[in-house]
């Protein structure tokens, strides 16, 4: 019963009555999130889908502590969040590696006062995990898009956060690399047992990875529906059940037949 156990019991993420608006250039308040309520259990994988501009990134940034909410609270295990913390890691759509640091220096960015040896060990361990061993001394410009995103994942994992926030992390990758990365995420989740909250515009990705899929309305973003995905792992993208869930989520994006759930369930 060490530190590890305690950290893993950090408690559920609770978002209550969260609202956020931005000032536009012509001094108008633009309501982006309105009364968001959501709870995410320890170790759960929740995917968030919604139209572009509905506030998904803003929601993740508020949870990350990079933006302040106008109203409402975000708490983990009852503790209200006020800023970034070591309990949360974020992976952005762009890899956001610092171009002037080597991959090893990027991966160990979150550590201060470590010895060379400690940094080497951390980077070695996490680069192995994302299959980038041998690239520790390379600069980001020498890596392909998929490799860069892997390095970014290693950087987020290195600080061992209890919760990973992923903002369309594979949106810029080609289809094959993307599928490979999704498998990688499943593997990492199995090993680390971390909570994951992923924004995606790819419904298939959401159904493939998530325990629950949160569907948001167009701006101002509200929670429109939460779909629990009850499919056995490993999930088969070609199965009829899989297609049913995809369709079940997809109908939300075509307003006219909102309530209609396709009939071909087995």
């Amino acid at each position, binding site marked *: 019963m060490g530190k590890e156990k305690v950290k893993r019991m950090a408690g559920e993420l609770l978002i209550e009555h969260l609202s956020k608006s931005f000032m536009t250039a012509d001094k108008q308040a633009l309501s982006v999130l309105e009364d968001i309520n959501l709870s995410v259990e320890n170790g759960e994988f929740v995917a968030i889908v919604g139209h572009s501009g509905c506030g998904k990134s803003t929601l993740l940034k508020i949870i990350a502590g990079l933006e302040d909410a106008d109203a409402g609270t975000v708490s983990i295990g009852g503790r209200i969040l006020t800023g970034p913390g070591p309990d949360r890691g974020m992976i952005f759509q762009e890899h956001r590696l*610092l171009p*002037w640091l080597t991959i090893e220096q990027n991966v160990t*960015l979150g550590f*201060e006062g470590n010895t060379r040896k400690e940094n080497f060990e951390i980077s070695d361990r996490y680069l192995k995990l994302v299959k980038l061993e041998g690239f520790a001394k*390379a*600069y*980001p410009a020498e890596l392909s898009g998929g490799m860069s995103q892997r390095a970014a994942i290693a950087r987020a994992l290195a600080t061992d956060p209890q919760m990973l926030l992923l903002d369309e992390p594979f949106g810029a990758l080609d289809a094959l690399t993307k599928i490979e990365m999704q498998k990688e995420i499943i593997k990492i989740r199995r090993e680390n047992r971390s909570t994951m909250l992923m924004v995606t515009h790819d419904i298939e990705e959401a159904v493939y990875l998530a325990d629950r899929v949160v569907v948001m309305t167009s701006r101002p973003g509200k929670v429109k529906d939460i779909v629990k995905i009850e499919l056995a792992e490993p999930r088969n993208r070609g199965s009829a059940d899989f297609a049913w869930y995809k369709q079940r989520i997809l109908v939300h994006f075509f307003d006219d037949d909102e309530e209609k759930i396709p009939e071909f369930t087995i």
Partner: protein
Amino acid sequence: MAWTLFSLILPLLILFAWLYVTGEALVPALLLPKPRIVLNEFIVQLTVGTIIEDISISFGRIVKGFGLAVLFGGGLGIIMGMFVPAERFFSLTFTSIRQIPMMAWVPLLVMWFGIGEASKVAVILMAAYFPILMNTSSGIRRTDPKLIEVGRMYRLTPWRMFVKIYLPSALPSIFVGLKLGLSISWMAVVGAEMIAASSGIGFRLNDARALMQFPIVFCGMFAIAIAGVLMDWVLTLISRAAAPWERKR
């Protein structure tokens, strides 16, 4: 290599034109001496040593004035780049002062600091200060907000935020400022020495003109150009060494 040869074409053409014009005596030899004569004079100057000495006196002034400009201009540039209120506070004043050509400062600075070393160093400081300050501050300010977010996410201390994110991001812009500042201060010191000095390459040039030693004037001008190019080249090498990641792009 091919490009080096290519960039030598124009200088060679100019040299041939010079040879032709002076060979055919199309202009009075007093106004434009033959390349041979200038070259001979150059060799004499190099062996007797006055030009090297003159250049090194001017260079010594550059080191002091430019060093101070890097210290003060770079320092304040960083502060103005990182803190918006500081930027707002200084911006109007600095933009106004910058409108004054550096040579217009010489009379005032000589009045304040005399004709000796201090006024030359002050002229260089004035000349190099603003390019360094402005480029440093705009480089820092243009740091990608997305990378700043990464720094906040990993809760970097202000110092690490500066060293890991702001400074490397601003480095290319800072070097633009340093190069600009260096070339302007080289011009400034030569100009100031021509107006008010008893040593240095600018003084030598003016002195030779007064004594009608035109080959020396030409040698002096070549020496100024060569020294300027060398200094710029050294800064380029330093900037490459300071940003090893740029070569991997």
